[in-house]
């Protein structure tokens, strides 16, 4: 049995989620976690790609390889 803290502390929300194994609450939070997880990877890749492009261009400009 799960200790189900949600249902003890927030009864209305707990009733909506019916917190426990194979419940809607477990499914919803699991899917949200996966969504955040996948988005995090995409965010890191895009952020890093943009940063490196800026750095590379700055270095090339400092070397005089790119005309301002």
């Amino acid at each position, binding site marked *: 049995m*799960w200790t189900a803290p949600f249902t003890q502390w927030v009864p209305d929300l707990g009733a909506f989620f019916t917190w426990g194994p194979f419940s809607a609450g477990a499914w919803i939070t*699991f899917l949200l*976690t*996966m969504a955040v997880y996948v988005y995090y990877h995409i965010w890191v*890749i895009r952020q890093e790609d943009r940063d490196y492009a800026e750095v590379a261009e700055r270095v090339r400009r400092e070397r005089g390889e790119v005309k301002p």
Partner: protein
Amino acid sequence: MFDLSAITPRRWALTWLAGVGSFLGISTAMAWAQQAPAQPPPGPEKALEFLSAHAAMNSEVYYFWTIVVMWLIHCGFMTYETGVARRKNMMHVVMKNVGLIPVVTVSMYFPGWWLYNAMVDGFVPRGTDDPLVAASIPWGASMGPNLQDHITGVFWGAFILFSWTTASIMSGAVIERIRQGAFLVLAALLGSVVWIVDAAWGWHPNGWLAMKWGFHDAIASGVVHGVAGAFTLGVLFNLGPRIGKFAPDGTPRYLPPHNLWMTVLGLFLIFTGFFGFYAACLVFFVGPEQWLWGNIYGSPTTLGSIFFNFVMGWSGGAMAGYMFSTPKRDPFWYCSCALAGVVSVSAGADIFYPPLGFLVGFIGAILCIGWYTFGERVLKVDDAVGAVAVHGAAGFWGVLAVGLFAAGYPTGANNVPSTLLGQIIGILVFIPLGFVPGFVVSWLFKRANLLRIPEEVEVVGQDTFVYGDMYPEFPRAPEPAWAPLAGGSDAPMPGTR
């Protein structure tokens, strides 16, 4: 004569207190013994119930603290890799080690733990009619706070730490030129899919390799280290060497660690954490007939057995590293080969005679150095920390060593004797299982131009534009650096590192 003057008030008081105290204590004990009702002795069922409950609680505590000790492995990997990195890339290396922890943790919650329990028959998962599978799906009753389950959480926790370790093995090899985004995806793939599938096959009491072939890899020489080494090699082929690692004619150059004592300290933290790793690979069983420590397959062993072989393998590896490293008596290889010795002896650490463990570690370290030299000079692979050699070569050697020296020992739920053939089959399965995903996924990142940092950033340093110099209070001596391979001269470029 009795000297009355010797009886001081202080002595008298102490003697009196001792006498009265003894009298009261004895009287109370006698009265209690007379009044206490006679308790019927507990029956064997009650005793077994109590013993099982006690064992469950002890197991929970035991695994919890192995997890804590295993954290040191990751402190060690971070320190070790940062010491190996050049000053211009230090913080980026640290952030890479930190970054793998959250991504591997979440993906080990799902699908990692489910894969471990479901994929035991091969690539087709078992259904939830198997109680272990039912207990491992993330929305199941065992995968959360559960007053009736004292083991799943901490056992999963131990596997989380194994997974971080597996991903960290790749981490060191790719430093100073891989992108964080690509690394995190590769770490999640290795740490929570690739190695966990091979663990389901060869490191699970019901795994098909153990059940059919008696595959024996008690503390994961091949399951963790070997597979991680094969995966890393696949990534390194696509990632390419660091700028300046090879001269235009292909001759490898030595890129010295920026802080070697930090690297050695990191290795010692890894060794400390590995005691937790070793301990977490054992399971305590209590039944009506017997109680025993078992290895991951449930075959009997003891904590003492694995300690014997841990330190003997360590010693053999360290000695070989000191003798055969290039350059001679190199501190980095001295300690790395000690790790190679531990990795080598791990597969049979539960059953080897300790001097045999010493020799297995000694040979494993020689193979480690040999593979590193071959990889660098022939394959032109730039493995910054020798991960493929230390973990891959030594790990698979350890698996083979069980077949050579300990064949016949029963393994798995079927108690199938381990054999040389079974160990070789395990190696032949694990090498492609590790190499192919690493190569394919890193190739896809390479095609998308997302695997490697730009050349301009690599020459200046990954920290320069994000974190800055990590030792601003220390003057920076000119350090030797090398021009880019493509079209660059072979002359050193002082001050650019």
